[in-house]
């Protein structure tokens, strides 16, 4: 039997036989109380230091790793469908670590790329996938994607914007509209990849799919190990049958498995310290219980609808470094910008977030999330290119250098995190015929880029 199938069957079995726990108890008692207890036991409460947003202390990262490891063993994941806990045994985590490959290839032909586990300050450049599932109008989808992916040196994989309509019809999630949309998006991807001259570009999931129906609709076009299926687990540490469906679909179609799970400051995890040990536990449990080839996870701050504030930057830095220093697990780490296209703030937020994730040891990112993903058509190729420039250029920087730059940049936008500028839509600030930003947008880009180079960010392109 395929070892991934064996893992999934074992976890499904535990989902039907593990300790009983209601969702309400899990969210309001088990998660907060266990997290607090583990933090207290490891003397890691009140460790967040917003004045030094990017952690530079290996001992801190290792101490949090130990706490996250204990938490993973103690808590497991909840299956809300059966209201039972799926626990992991220590030997399973250790075995999963041993079996983790040294690298993972994605894409094919001239577009083949290699993802590797990265240590903090690793010189090996991480991979960039574009974009997060920001909604675009149908007529803009292909041109924007062509623009984003045409810069081969900056973009390694396609997830893509999402759609709200299929052939002009409004899509309701979980209905046949969504199943049709899955196939439709896959067709649009093929067209965009052909037009951009990148037919072998690695693809991830179906961006518009909000349930397993959309995934299933698009999967036949994404079969094979060049592409990844995607399954995002609900917070905190939950895995639903819908997640299992997607994982099994991915196995059936021979895909790489990208399985995600997030931890929220201000949510059930509470503090930045709580969110980060839950994030470490997520990074350990997902490959162990859900057979992922790589995880997609990060710490998010629900108080500001993003993760570019000091608390979240710090929490992500520690969480990423902790797992990078102590395992070879590969992880896709996402930055959630809140400002929109054609704003300085977007460039600053993404620069801080991506520099942090890169120097801390992330193997891959999926970007951008322009305007927090709130508005339709607020996504241009320039944000994607910028994210690629920053994320890849920062490979090899030290955490100390990155922290010094972050300390200069964060004050430029942090007061606006609670009310970020919306910016401009793609049609207002980007010419999709010439694939160039407007003069105004280009000027903002040039100004910020020059400023960051002066600060010491080694931007290469």
């Amino acid at each position, binding site marked *: 039997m395929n070892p991934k199938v064996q893992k999934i069957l074992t976890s499904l079995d535990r989902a039907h036989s593990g300790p009983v726990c209601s969702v309400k108890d899990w*969210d*309001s*008692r088990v*998660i*907060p109380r266990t997290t607090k207890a583990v933090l207290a036991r490891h003397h890691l409460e009140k460790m967040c230091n917003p004045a030094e947003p990017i952690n530079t202390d290996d001992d801190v990262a290792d101490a949090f790793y130990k706490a996250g490891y204990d938490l993973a063993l103690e808590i497991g994941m909840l299956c809300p469908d059966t209201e039972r806990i799926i626990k992991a045994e220590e030997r399973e985590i250790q075995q999963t670590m041993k079996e983790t490959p040294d690298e993972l290839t994605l894409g094919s032909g001239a577009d083949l790329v290699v993802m590797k586990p990265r240590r903090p300050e690793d010189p090996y450049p991480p991979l960039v996938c574009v974009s997060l599932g920001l*909604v675009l109008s149908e007529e803009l989808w292909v041109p924007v994607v062509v623009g984003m992916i045409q810069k081969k040196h900056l973009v390694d994989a396609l997830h893509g914007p*999402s759609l*709200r309509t299929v052939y002009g019809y*409004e*899509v*309701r*999630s*979980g*209905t046949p*509209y*969504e199943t049709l*949309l899955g196939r439709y998006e896959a067709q649009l991807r093929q067209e965009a990849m052909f037009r951009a001259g990148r037919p072998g570009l690695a693809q991830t999931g179906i961006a*518009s799919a*909000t*349930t397993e129906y959309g995934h299933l609709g698009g999967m036949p076009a994404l079969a094979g190990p060049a592409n990844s299926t995607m399954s995002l687990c*609900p*917070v905190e540490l939950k895995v*639903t049958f*819908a997640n299992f469906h997607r994982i099994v679909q991915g196995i059936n179609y021979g895909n790489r498995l990208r399985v995600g799970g997030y931890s*929220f400051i*201000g*949510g*059930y*995890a*509470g*503090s930045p310290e709580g969110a980060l040990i839950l994030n470490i536990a997520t990074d350990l449990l997902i490959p162990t219980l859900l057979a992922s080839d790589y995880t997609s996870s990060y710490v998010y701050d*629900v*108080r500001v*609808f993003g993760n570019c504030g000091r608390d979240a930057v710090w929490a992500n830095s520690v969480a990423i470094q902790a797992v990078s220093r102590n395992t070879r697990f590969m992880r896709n780490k996402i930055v959630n910008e809140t400002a929109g296209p054609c704003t300085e703030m977007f460039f600053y937020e993404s620069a801080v977030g991506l520099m942090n994730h890169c120097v801390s040891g992330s193997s891959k990112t999926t970007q951008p999330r322009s305007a*927090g*993903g*709130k*508005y*339709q058509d607020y996504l241009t190729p320039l944000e994607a290119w910028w994210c690629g420039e920053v994320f890849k250029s920062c490979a090899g920087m030290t955490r100390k250098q990155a922290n010094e730059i972050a300390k200069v940049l964060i004050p430029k936008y942090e007061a606006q995190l*609670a*009310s*970020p500028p919306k910016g401009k839509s793609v049609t207002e600030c980007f010419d999709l015929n010439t694939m160039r930003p407007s003069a105004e947008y280009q000027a903002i880009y040039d100004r910020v880029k020059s400023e960051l180079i002066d600060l010491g960010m080694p931007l290469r392109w």
Partner: protein
Amino acid sequence: MEEVLERLANAIIDGEPELAEAAAKEALAAGIPPLEIIERGANRGIQEIGERFSRYDCFLPELILAGDAMNAALPVLLASLSAAEAKSLRLGKVVIATVTGDIHDIGKNIVAALLTVAGFEVFDLGVNVDVKQILRKADEVKADIIALSTLLSTSLPYQKDVVRYLQDSGKRERYFVVVGGGPVAPDWAQQIGADGYGRTAAHAVELCKQLMAQYEPPMREPLVFDYKA
């Protein structure tokens, strides 16, 4: 007398429903007027937890558990009041849900917890909730407000379906319908004929308070609580 009121407040702050209910009963048995118990015991506890939350001194779980404790104590106390007095102590009834196809719960849970803390009676139906189920519950509890959340653009149409169903069934004037969530914006609220939009959980609470205090459904234009431009 002070001691039992203090215990009630602390039971709510600590999120202990059984202790809160017991303290409420004890206070009544001691002859303390129910309105005084609510004001100086229960409300003091819930206000304290609300302030801690706004200062980031506590987080969502504490808020949810405090709401549970408040909901355990309050029926005991309200039963000792006249119907008019009891009604005057509640700001209104809210049925809240994340709509079909969407299992994101955290934003909705924060709004539900803050509404409870603010004094609303909240009926939280959970996530991925069907339109009919929302409307049945609103009808059953005689809700004042239907609050609909989603983080997914392809679940947005279900918010519209709630408003449209109310219109088509001649029940639109019975409820305020308010919307929120990641892809939800004021123009969407306007487009579907919702009564209000709140960007953040705190905005949602202010929205519901103002709707209840000053307006009747349906609104001609949605009342919008958003970031200042």
